[in-house]
């Protein structure tokens, strides 16, 4: 196995003007040279092997997009070394483009007015894909999803789901070494999400393509990634197998209940009854974080039903956001 992506202590800093408030402040800003430096990415190192699917996670503003932009050559790192597919991205952006595919969730890269098949033919010319490989790829696509109805439809007329699907197919068309997928399932319905996950998985298996996936959807991660990397505030928090992470957090579930009596009173009472659990309340629900290794959710619910009249309940798997929050608060490893 060879490394296709290597990041060594990568740092990216942005200069940001210190803005002042109000109209007076804006006028001051016009002439101000008062810059502060913000570190968007702070010393990230990792190596990714050919054929891996890596989930790249982190809350909004963690530095994910900045890292992706550096890996694709759009941004130049302030310091540190990056090689992708054997080249330094920002120095050989056009050359690297032949080796990678990029999909940005909501931004289609296809020709808006053209039917999908025409976009494919253009991409075939642009990437100089040999006829045989192109035909084989289309046959392979056909075996994975029913693309026939999409092929003759202009991209502009497609639903978001169809467009995302088309964009992903287009990104894999020239059989790149690496594909970057930035929130590919955002805004899609459940069945489309499942379709897209199956597609990505199959392409990775068949073509041995490396996939870097950023997402906020734990479902994507569960379905696709063996390895995840989590960053927050530009720093690497976690880089390991997903199993390892689940060992820590997989047994947590959030039980949400809506009792008959006033929420705040009930929350206080429940907090007293269950001193070992974290209990919190918002306008609608009381949330109880349950560690299933210690006590089953149903037992907790049963216990609560003795003392409270429960009108409604929900059970939530722990979300990516919560995992990250917990990692950030408590650390792993």
């Amino acid at each position, binding site marked *: 196995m060879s490394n296709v992506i290597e990041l060594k202590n990568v740092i990216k800093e942005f200069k940001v003007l210190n803005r002042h408030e109000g109209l007076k402040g804006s006028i001051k800003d016009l002439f101000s040279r008062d810059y502060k430096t913000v570190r968007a990415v702070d010393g990230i190192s990792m190596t990714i092997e050919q054929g891996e699917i890596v989930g790249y996670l982190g809350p909004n*503003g963690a530095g994910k997009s900045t890292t992706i*932009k550096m890996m694709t050559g759009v941004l130049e790192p302030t310091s540190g070394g990056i090689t992708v597919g054997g080249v330094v991205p920002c120095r050989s*952006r*056009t050359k690297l*483009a032949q080796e990678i*595919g990029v999909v940005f969730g909501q*931004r289609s890269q296809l020709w808006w007015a*053209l039917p999908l098949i025409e976009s494919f033919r*253009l991409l075939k010319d*642009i990437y100089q894909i040999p006829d045989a490989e192109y035909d084989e790829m289309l046959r392979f696509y056909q075996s994975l999803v029913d693309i026939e109805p999409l092929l003759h439809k202009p991209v502009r007329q497609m639903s978001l789901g169809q467009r995302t699907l088309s964009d992903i197919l287009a990104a894999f068309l020239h059989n790149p070494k690496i594909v970057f997928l930035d929130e590919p399932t955002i805004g899609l319905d459940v069945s489309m999400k499942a379709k897209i996950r199956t597609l990505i998985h199959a392409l990775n298996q068949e073509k041995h393509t490396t996939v870097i996936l950023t997402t906020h959807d734990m479902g994507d991660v569960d379905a696709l990634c063996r390895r995840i990397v989590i960053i927050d505030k530009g720093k690497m928090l976690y880089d390991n197998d997903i199993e390892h992470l689940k060992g820590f957090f997989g047994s947590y579930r959030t039980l949400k209940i809506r009792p008959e009596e006033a929420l705040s009173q009930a929350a206080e009472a429940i907090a007293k009854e269950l001193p070992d659990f974290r209990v919190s309340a918002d306008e609608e629900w009381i949330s109880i974080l349950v560690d299933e290794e210690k006590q089953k959710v149903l037992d907790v619910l049963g216990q609560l039903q003795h003392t409270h009249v429960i009108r409604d309940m929900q059970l939530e798997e722990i979300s990516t956001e919560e995992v990250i929050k917990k990692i950030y608060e408590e650390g792993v490893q």
Partner: protein
Amino acid sequence: MKRGLGFYLRIYARILVQDIKSKMSYRADFIISTLGMICTNIAGFVSFWIVFQNFPSVDGWSYYEMLFLYGFSLVSLTPVQCLFDNNWSLRMYVYSGDFIKYCFRPINLFFYYQSEVFDIKGLGQLAFGIGTLVYAWAKLGLPVTALMIVKMIVFLITASLIMIALQNAAAATCFWIQNSFYVLDFVFRFKDYAKYPITIFSPVFRFIFTFLMPIAFIAYYPSLVILHPDEVPLLSWLSPVVGLVFFFLSYKIWMYGAMKYSGTGS
């Protein structure tokens, strides 16, 4: 894996065919915009004609000479209209962050961006301009020789580069400033002065239109080569060079801005 001129021409032809096909599919839109372009051209010509009903000549230029100049400017302003119209949308792509989609293709970024739009309306202007040129040519009794025609084509093509260059540079300002529309609009308005002999302007404007905002090279200087072959000023012979140099500079500015572009947050 070499991508030479042939490669780019093939890609361009393919995009062009597809683009025209899809534009034709909006029949009403296509017909209305074509009619609109024809009306614009006729209106432009009528105002030109009315001026000449009142003045027999402009600064020693006869009606047919002026008509020649007018036709020359129409033809040399066609390429910017047809091939580089996407420059008008650049600021929107840059502002919204959508410009990033152009950054991941293994072909020239400037080419890829401009190739996306072909404005078919410009062809009406081209036909109108050629008609005017041929008519003025015949009325002026200019000789029709192979050399004249070659000269004409070379000077037309290089003259068309001027407006393209001005527009590229103006559009590229959006990589640095938020509202570049005014810059683009401002520059684009200057093209209206291209159809007059530069000698009618004051020395200050003559200097500006020759060296700073070189619109005198769109029609005036290059037409002198055809119209007054006996007394061609040096600047006329230089006009192909000026066209090429300005185009190259504007391309460099555009690419510099585009390569610096890093998108918006997502």
